[in-house]
């Protein structure tokens, strides 16, 4: 239609090039921090004897979701150990947890800020829409450009992909706190901080926890995809199954992902309910 082509790809590439050369110090520090976190999670999990970890995860699941789910979780974990995916399983868990640490560290404050400022909310909302509808694979490319191959870009891409629901639901949860509760605390002379920590956050907690739950689930799906750029873990096993057309191996790795998903989902879904009376 037009005699020229809008050079979006050139702009983006140029921007990424510029940033990765000019701000290498920043990216290196982020990279080191991510590595530090993932390594420690992974080492911590793998130091434990599988049986100990199975018991601990079983107990947490029991506390959060009851006997039946705990039984499924423990059985699932034994299967994972048995089919030789224990190390990959824990790598994936470490990746998800690391990404979630960043998601919470950034997502909560951003969500709180969005709830307090309509203007900021107006800016961030289309951005979040964009982040969520963009195909997940696309995040991998800039992540590689900035951080190279390996697990660091995997965690970063996961972070970007998983943060929107937490921001959204934190924002929503705080906005849904009844007006009278805010008025009541104002009437007592509450400061902004007192209002946030004694009223808004506790009342919004179930919604915020739903956000944490969703971001963990999204994170888990992304971690598997991130195996394509060398993030390792269960995703790598799935990928190997695909590349070699070994249906059985692919299925086993997929099953392990499902088991991890069930455990994480039930535990975090339970958090939102924990303070509610019977």
């Amino acid at each position, binding site marked *: 239609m037009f005699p020229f082509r809008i050079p979006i790809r050139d702009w983006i590439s140029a921007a990424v090039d510029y940033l990765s050369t000019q701000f290498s110090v920043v990216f290196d520090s982020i990279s080191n921090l991510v590595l530090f976190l993932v390594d420690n999670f992974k080492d911590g999990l793998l130091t434990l004897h599988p049986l100990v970890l199975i018991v601990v995860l079983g107990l947490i699941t029991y506390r959060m979701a009851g006997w039946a789910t705990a039984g499924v979780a423990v059985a699932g974990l034994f299967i994972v150990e048995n089919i030789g995916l224990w190390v990959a399983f824990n790598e994936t868990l470490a990746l998800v947890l690391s990404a979630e640490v960043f998601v919470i560290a950034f997502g909560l404050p951003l969500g709180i800020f969005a709830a307090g400022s309509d203007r900021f909310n107006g800016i961030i909302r289309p951005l979040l829409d964009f982040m969520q509808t963009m195909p997940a694979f696309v995040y991998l490319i800039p992540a590689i450009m900035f951080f190279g191959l390996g697990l660091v870009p995997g965690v970063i891409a996961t972070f970007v992909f998983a943060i929107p629901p937490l921001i959204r639901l934190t924002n929503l949860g705080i906005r849904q706190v009844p007006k009278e509760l805010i*008025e009541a605390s104002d009437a*007592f002379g509450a400061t902004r901080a007192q209002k946030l920590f004694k009223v808004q956050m506790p009342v919004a907690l179930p919604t915020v926890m739903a956000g944490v739950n969703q971001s963990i689930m999204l994170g888990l799906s992304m971690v598997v995809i991130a195996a394509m750029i060398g993030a390792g873990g269960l995703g790598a096993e799935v990928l190997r199954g695909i590349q070699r057309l070994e249906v059985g191996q692919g299925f086993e790795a997929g099953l392990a992902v499902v088991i991890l998903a069930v455990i994480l989902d039930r535990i975090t879904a339970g958090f939102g309910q924990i303070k*509610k009376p019977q």
Partner: protein
Amino acid sequence: MSKIEIKNVSKIFGPKPERAFKMLEQGIPKNEVQAKTGLVVGVYDISIEIEKGEVFVIMGLSGSGKSTLQRLLNRLHEPTRGEIIIDGKDITKMDHNELIHFRRKAFSGMVFQNFAILPHRTVMGNVEFGLEIHGVDKEKRRKRAQEVIEIVGLQGYENSFPSELSGGMQQRVGLARGLAVDADILLMDEAFSALDPLIRREMQDELLELQSRMKKTIVFVTHDLDEAFKLGDRIAILKDGVMVQMGTAEEIITNPVDDYVTAFVEGLDRTGVFTAGTIMQPVKATAHVNDGLHTILHRIRRAGLSSMLLVDSQRILHGYLKAGEVAEEVKKESVDEKKKPHHSLIHSPETVHPDTHLTEVINLYSESTGPIAVVNDNNKLLGVIVRGAIIAALSKGYKPEDNGYTEQTGTEEKVS
């Protein structure tokens, strides 16, 4: 000095409120201002002085600006114009920190229609909330909260969560949360409107009882006139953001300023407003303790009564005599004209205090056969209650000052 002085306060919601003021000054009503400028008039040019220890009721239908006015008092809404002076300080001039400090010092928080208590906290945790905000240490606030929990009758429920309590009990928590704070002004926004009628009445009575001990300054917002008149020492009636009348319950009932107030007052349950003192009649004739039977009978006949109250020279009430019994006695003992009535002839009448509510008077009336005397604390006779006066008080156009006795007797005959 009044506790709270509201001076020409207005609240306009929306940008550039000056446009609204120009129209309002020309007497253009609220809904037209809104239609033309898009600005919402909360309240316009209201001046009220609320005294310490008073229960002041702000009354009006929804949209009348009553809640807005209340929220201006602690600046949950910023007044657009005017001054609000509490304890001699103009709160409209305070900055954010001063305001927070002042709210802690002057206000016992707010009590809301839908309770607004924290769902994630126990009863104890909720009652402690205000003190916690004020930075009172844990042991002290726990002790204080326990005291207040007992005052509102929630002992035994300290560790229950709000979802486990009934509406009435949740509102007790809301009330206790305010009372726990040692500040003078308590704001109550439709506090009892969500409760069912029986519980509502119970809570109203309890509030009055608490108030008689605590003497807080209460600003109570309601749309219910019965409630307003029951609780309020004074009442301000708002309509479309403007105050149409302010005064005591009796002043408003007997002298409604316009049709709007009249229409309100018509639907009122008057039994809770009028007292024995308002409707009592002067005693037309009495018998003296030193009078002989003949004199008494003569007086009874002349007054055309069926019974007569017996007083001494201090007008202290000694009892009453029935016309029939006196006449029989006179027949029997026709020899001694000076003989005083035997004590078996003197009956003790029902007595009420002038502050007794009409409801109770009516109950007494239906139970007793004799007259109902109105006496003060020293048993001094002040007046009597006539059936006609009760019925007149319940009718719409009643005004206490024009209830002549003869007119009332007429009413009595017609009705009975």
